[in-house]
Structures are given as C-alpha cells and as structure tokens.
C-alpha cells in the first residue's frame, strides 16, 4: 500500500501532541521581527507572529498590510532580510518551499496548482509517490487520508469536474499527504460559497483537534470569529495586535485594528457643485469568471463634477463592475446609462464615442499591449482619426503620441520601441493620458495608483481631480482607503456584488468604513442619507 513520505515520523498516527492546551510546549510557529523589503516598498517592517500548536490562527489585515509576504516567509518562498523563523521552537532558515515542507510547513495558495485533466489522486501524489504507481492502492490511500480529516472527495475523479471548494480540498490534501503539521491557507474562502466555507471551517477544526496547526489569511471577519481560536492583525507591514483570543474580542474591534483609527490629514481639493447624472447603473447583475455571481443588484450614479469612490476588499465585484461599464463583460440584467443613453449592450467603441474613459486594473494586458510600441499603444482608441483612406498617417499618430507623452509626463525611450521596458509609473501615465487626453465626460478608474511611487501617485491623483474640475463624472475604485478619503466627494462601499453603505468622506469614521468593507452591518445613522 502506498503511503505518504514521513519526514517527521508522525504521520498515520492519531497522537495528539500538545493538542488543545499546549501551554507546556513551544509555539508551533514563531516569527520574530521579520523585515522584508522589495524595490520601492517595505512589505514587512518587524512583523511578528506566534501560533499555538493545535490551534486555528487567523492573520488579518487590509490589502498591502504584509500578510501574504509574511506567510511567504513562513512557507519558504521568500527569505527574510532580518528576523527569525522558529518551528516548534527550532530555528530554521528556509531556502526553498521544499525546505519548509521538510520542516512540516505546507501552504495552500489562492491560485491552485492543479492539473485539470488528472484525477484527484494523481494531483495529490504528484511529486510524492512510489516509483510504480498502483492506481487503486494510491486512490485508496488518498481516500483514507481524506476521510481522516473530513475532506469528502472522490480520488478517481478528474479535477476539472470539481467545484472550487472541492479543488481546494485537493490542495489541502496535497499538503497533508506530505505530512504538513502546519498548514497555511491564503484567503481560502475567497473562492468558496458560504456553505463550502462552513465545511472548510469544520475541516480546519478537525485538523487542529488532530494536533496540527492552521494559519490562515483572511478578510472575512465572521469566519474568523466563527472558527478561529486566535487572531493576529497586521497593518503597514507591522503587527498591531498579536494572538488575540477571538473569544475575547469582537468584529468591530478587529475591523478597527485592520483599518486604523487615526484620521488622515491631507489637503482636500475643494468641493464643487455636482451637475447632471452622467453615469447611472441600475440593479446590475452579472457573472464572474467562474460563472458565479459577480454583481448582485448594483446601483450607483455619478454626476458631472464629482468623484465617487468605491471602497472594498478585493474580489467583491469591483472588477466586474468596471468591466460591465466599459462593455467588456456581458450583463445578465439591469441597465447602464451613459449621459442619459442606455448603453447596457453597447460595444466598447460606442462607449468611447460617448465620452467614456476607462483605466482598467490590468494595465498591461488589457489597457496596454506590451509588445507594441508606445505610439501604437497611444492611438489604440483613436487610430480611426488618423486614417487617410486605408492608410494610417503615422506622422499624425506619432505627433499625437508625442503630445500625449509631453502632456502627461511619460518618460519613454524612442516612441517606436515596445512599451515593455517602461516603469510602472510611466506605463500608468501613458494609459491614463490616453484615456483622458480627449477630455472624457465619464471616467472609470480602477486601482489607478496601484504599485506607483509617491510622485506617480500624486500625478495620477492630480489628473483625476483635474478631470473632475473640468466637469467629468469620475468613478474611482481603489484599495487605498486614504486615497479615497482624500479624493472622493462621496464614498461608497462595495461588498458581495452590491453597494452596502455610503459615507461622507469628510466626516466618516474609518472604523465604520472598515466594518462595512468586511460585511459587518453598519447602523443606518452612520450613513449619509440618499440624495
């Protein structure tokens, strides 16, 4: 019978080492004073983490707080610049994920690494099986392992037939097959339905009861409250609250810790009188890439001369919303009106003709074509204008491009070279410039300052405010709450495919916004009354 490899010699037993009350053992995981820097950003600034053996421990934080980086350090993907990593009290210096696995640390990533045409069993044992693979024996062994942990699965089913929840179970099984004592899960419930999420919670509890340790990254507070023992909160690369016992805290407190309570003091551009409604979305519904619900009855309106910001945790429908407005995603029901005209089914070109400027989240790949030249990218939406019969007036195109580059301060090499060499900031300036150069009447900007340096961020923000001042209706979607609070005239919060709250950025409390973002109901009198 085929058995999984036993690096620690503890597999296939149901011993519970220190189990539920391990006050007498070293913590399963201890990360101390971890620093990790990347070009231009400090991802972890002295973060720490302490996880009790046999517990389910959540790591919380907003996007960019440093959670994924810290987990990557723990699982051997990154090497910390400073700090130590201790597993069961012993110091380790992981050089590769394989080293971490050998020490019993297995990670389940958000993007699954599975071969769709292989069966569950084949995926689980890939890279960790005997020389001769006896199919039935392997399937039996995998099935037994799955049952032991309550991960219902059919070992001989091809993975492509499985739902996301089932695929995740296969990923967990992979780690268990390699005898991971410490399991790290990155946003595991992001891809699950609520029912599947509950099942996962039960599985994690089961594993903890078995003496294993589970660490998971999450945004979803009710799940954290529901099946974790302890939580650690990160913000700005640091640990702001360590190993809080979940029983002793509540969602509000955790939300507050995640977003911080200090008010942001920045210059606000002067408020203007908003004009007529330029962009109106009514009861919009659409599907996401997996065929599940993307938008579920989205309503919003943006007027000329205002910036409406949308705050929310990634994956709650922001991407689907912008794609529907731009005409890149089919709408299941509901309407989209641009400047009073129904454009629900219009092509992207038609919407552009109406005066829509779209700054997509995917800079390279949708917004810009990496292998094409700067000029080619600059005229992507307007090349029709430079036609002379069948010909494209390349002189006119180039000078249009040059104007754009000058006006928006894009630093490039020769204009006929591929844009792939440009820095993120310049790519974004090019993209934004292209969309804004004609003075659009509606601007939809998705994560426009993501990944940019300070100057780049300021430049893009100034451009957006400039558009607003010129009378455009601007819809700004951002993961940076500070940015939204600074720029937006109205702030909406998106959660699970619809708008769940509206705030006045000048008076809102961050902590209330944070709670809305994570789906925690907010009392009505904290919201600005609808106009």
């Amino acid at each position, binding site marked *: 019978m085929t058995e999984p490899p036993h690096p620690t010699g503890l597999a296939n037993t149901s011993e519970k080492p220190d189990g539920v009350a391990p006050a007498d053992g070293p913590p399963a995981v201890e990360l101390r004073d971890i620093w990790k820097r990347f070009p231009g950003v400090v991802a972890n600034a002295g973060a720490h983490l302490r996880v009790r053996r046999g517990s389910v421990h959540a790591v919380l934080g907003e996007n960019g707080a440093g959670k994924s980086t810290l987990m990557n350090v723990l699982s051997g993907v990154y090497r910390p610049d400073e700090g130590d990593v201790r597993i069961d009290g012993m110091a380790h210096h992981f050089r590769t994920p394989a080293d971490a696995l050998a020490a019993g640390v297995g990670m389940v990533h958000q993007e699954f*690494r599975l*071969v*769709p*045409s*292989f069966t569950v069993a084949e995926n689980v044992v890939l890279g960790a099986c*005997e*020389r001769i*693979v006896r199919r039935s024996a392997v399937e039996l062994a995998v099935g037994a392992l799955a049952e032991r942990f309550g991960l219902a699965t059919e070992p001989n089913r091809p993975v*492509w037939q499985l739902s996301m929840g089932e695929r995740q179970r296969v990923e967990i099984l992979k780690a268990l097959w390699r005898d991971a004592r410490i399991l790290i899960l990155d946003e595991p419930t992001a891809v699950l339905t609520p029912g599947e999420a509950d099942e996962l919670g039960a599985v994690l509890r089961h594993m903890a009861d078995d003496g294993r340790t589970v660490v998971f990254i999450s945004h979803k507070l009710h799940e954290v409250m529901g099946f974790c023992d302890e939580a650690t909160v990160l913000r700005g690369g640091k640990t702001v609250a360590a190993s809080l016992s979940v029983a002793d805290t509540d969602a509000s407190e955790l939300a507050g810790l995640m977003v911080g309570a200090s008010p942001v003091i920045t210059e606000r551009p002067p408020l203007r009188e908003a004009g007529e409604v330029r962009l109106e979305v009514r009861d919009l519904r659409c599907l996401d890439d997996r065929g599940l619900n993307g938008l579920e009855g989205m309503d919003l309106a943006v007027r000329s001369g205002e910036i409406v910001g949308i705050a929310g945790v990634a994956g709650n429908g922001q991407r689907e919303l912008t794609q529907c407005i731009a005409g890149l995603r089919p709408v299941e029901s509901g309407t989209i009106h641009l400047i009073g005209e129904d454009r629900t089914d219009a092509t992207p070109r038609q919407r552009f003709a109406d005066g829509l400027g779209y700054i997509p989240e995917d800079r390279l790949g949708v917004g810009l074509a990496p292998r094409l030249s700067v000029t080619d990218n600059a005229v992507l939406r307007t090349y029709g204008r430079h036609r002379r019969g069948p010909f494209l007036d390349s002189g006119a195109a180039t000078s249009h491009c040059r104007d754009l580059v000058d006006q928006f301060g894009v630093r490039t090499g020769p204009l006929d070279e591929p844009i792939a060499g440009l820095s993120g900031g310049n790519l974004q300036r090019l993209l934004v410039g292209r969309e804004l150069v004609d003075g659009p009447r509606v601007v939809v900007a998705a994560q426009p300052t993501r990944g940019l340096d300070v100057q780049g961020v300021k430049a893009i923000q100034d451009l957006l405010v400039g558009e607003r001042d010129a009378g455009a209706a601007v819809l700004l979607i951002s993961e940076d709450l500070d940015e939204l609070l600074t720029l937006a005239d109205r702030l909406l919060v998106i959660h699970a495919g619809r708008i769940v709250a509206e705030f006045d950025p000048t008076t809102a409390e961050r902590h209330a916004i944070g709670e809305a973002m994570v789906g925690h109901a907010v009392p009505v009198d904290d919201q600005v009354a609808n106009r």
Partner: protein
Amino acid sequence: MNEASLIGLFEATVSFGALLYLAALGEMIAEKAGILNLGVEGMMAMGAVTGFVVALQTGNPWVALVAAVAAGAMIGLLHGFFTVVLGAEQVVSGLSLTILGLGLAAFVGRGSVGEPAGAEMVSVDWGPLSDIPWAGPILFAQSPFVYLAVITGFVTWFVLWRTRLGLAVRAAGESASTADAAGHSVVGIRLAAVATGGGLAGASGAYLTLSLTPQWADGIVAGRGWIAVALVIFGAWRPGRVAVGALLFGLTLALKTRLQTFGVDFSPILLSMLPYLLTISVLVVISIRSRNRPSPAPAALGIAYRREER
C-alpha cells in the same frame, strides 16, 4: 482477390502499421511532455541512413539499430536544446530539423544508394505458431521490428500511466508550472522525452532500411514521418488508440499498391489522402468537444516554459 493476396494485404498492414507506430509513439511521448516535434521525418531519415550505413560496415543489424536510435535521439536532443533550453519556437526548430535531417541523411548516404543491404533483420521464427492459417503469416512471421513496436507500445503505456516518472512527464505536458512546483525538473523531463521521441523515430527509420525495404535511397521516408505526427492526434494521445490508427493508416499504405490486384477501380493516390483528411476531421471533433471538457491534447503542448517569467 484470393486468400493469398488478402493475407499479403494484412501482413503488409501490420508491417506498415508497426513502422508508423514506432515513430508515432516517439512523437506521442514528446508531445505528452509538452514538446511538438515536427522533425520526425528528418529523424526517421537519419535513423534510416545510419542503420543502413552501420549495417554495411558491421554486418550486424542489431548494432545498426542501436546506432540508428542514437542518431535519432541526438537530433531529438538538438530539438530539445533549442526549444526547452533556449526557448525557441517549437515549430521552427522542428521543421528545420526535418530539413537538416533529410539533407544530412542524403549527404551521409550518398555513396550507398542502390547498394545491397549489409545486413537485414530476418523475420522471427515462431516455430509452429507461424503455421496457423491467417494469423500465422500475418502476426507470427514478421520482422523483429514489429514485435519491438508492440513491446514499446506496452512499455510506453505502463511508464506513462503507472509510474512516478510517467506522472511527472504527463504533468509537464499539462501544466509545467505545477510539475515544477511539485519538485520535478521540467527541463530534464522534456529533454528526455524529446530524445526518446527522436530515438524511436530513428528506430522506425532503421526498420525501413534494415527490414521493410532493405536499401537506401534519398527520400525513402516518403512522408511517413508526417503520417506519424497525424497518427498521434488521430489516436488522441493514447497508445492503444494510436495502435488502432496505425493499423488503419497502415492499411491505406498497404492498399496503395494492391488496389489493382483486388480489382478495385479507385485511385490509390486519392486513397493515400485518407489519413490526413481523417486526422483533420478527428481534430475538428476534438476541438468542438473541448468546449466543455478538457481536450485530450496536452494543455502545455507547444508552449515554452520559463520559470522566471511571471
């Protein structure tokens, strides 16, 4: 049409089928690992000429076979080097190797055209089994290559679907990054697979000059390398189905010269178009059905893998 000519037809079907099967198995292995090898025709030519020349020199057909396999494998490794290590386009590298292989084979064999064979693979004598009516001459009086082809088929199936190595190879062809993450060397796997593919193509070529038509001439492969490529697709990348396809395509090859003796008034040339047209049809059907389920084609086929590029 009489019994003897029918037996002759089936015998030839098996012979040609084995020729195609050997080369197709090699191609299948390479494609299962993710490498499209359009150099089969050139590798077969090199195997053919190497086998012939070495047989002339040594008088030993088995040594000649080994040499032919080595020649094919080396060209396969070249293809692997350019595509896997350097990341060049698989189509371009493969076709260039066909051109190179055909040219090199013509060059090497230029002095041996028309020479009588130095050694031949004599048909295996199965004793009393060869006397069974029908089955005897068809199945039990064939060249050793035929049995080699059958054994290779089984071994290929076993390795690919019943061993750790085979799992790794298939993973490399479906999702190279997953295979990489599982700790396998995608580069190593693909190089080995394409070398094996070349070796089997070389063996197939040697079959031509050491057994089937024991002589060398420029152009002896006559497009059968392309049939082998077609065969892999026709058989949906499974050794069993490829075997069935090999017999089918082998039949069309055997019929080419025999249609007249059977009194059939159908142009053998038009008949010889059949394998290619059938393959296109199968491919269209596969593509249509792939809208709802994964295609039987290895998902990473033809795509270069570079870990650093994200």
